[in-house]
């Protein structure tokens, strides 16, 4: 079992409920394959540094999870054919960090706040929402 971090950029027009369904599908897949979701992280809408598929904005979502390596291929299959997802990346988590530490990490919040500042017209509702896996 290894720790991974999945980052997704959704199309800015994707509704929150659609995002929630897609993320739910992915986390269902992970848990079905005996993995576990550690943490969700939402950045909300941000200006992209360069256009992707002619979009200048994207909705960032991050998912931390533990899983066996073959699960990644199935996740990729889910993501690849979804047009709401502009860009995705799955990275192995730093081995120096334990899953517990990731849960505790909230210092990322300041980073995000600054990142939001530079994109003036971002969602003011919630720049950083850290949800528990069950939320």
């Amino acid at each position, binding site marked *: 079992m290894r720790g991974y971090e999945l980052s997704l950029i959704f199309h800015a027009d994707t509704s929150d409920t659609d995002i929630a369904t897609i993320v739910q599908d992915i986390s269902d897949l992970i848990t079905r394959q005996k993995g576990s979701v550690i943490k969700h992280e939402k950045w909300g809408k941000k200006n992209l540094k360069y256009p992707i598929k002619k979009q200048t904005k994207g909705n960032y979502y991050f998912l931390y999870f533990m899983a066996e390596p073959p699960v990644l291929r199935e996740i990729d299959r889910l993501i690849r054919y979804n047009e709401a997802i502009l860009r995705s990346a799955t*990275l192995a988590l730093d081995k120096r960090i334990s899953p517990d530490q990731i849960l505790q990490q909230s210092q990322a919040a300041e*980073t995000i706040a600054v990142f939001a500042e530079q994109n003036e017209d971002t969602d003011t509702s919630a720049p950083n929402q850290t949800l528990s896996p069950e939320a």
Partner: protein
Amino acid sequence: MATKKKTQRKKTFYSKRKICRFCANKDQLISYKDYNTLRHFISERGKIIPRRISGNCSKHQREITRAIKRARVMSIMPFIVAAS
């Protein structure tokens, strides 16, 4: 004839040894999502600043480079910044 020897030029360069900020602060981990940290290691044109200037140690420069490249893929950092 015109053989001025370069050995005559004896300039001494003084340079303060820069300290790698990530070695100085061991708690600070480098992440591709951390735009605010990575921002200091790119030029105005979006290029990665070399170690000789940034003062990072080789280990941390590698980590920074990797993080910037990952951030570029996720559009957190620019590949290039157009000349103004």
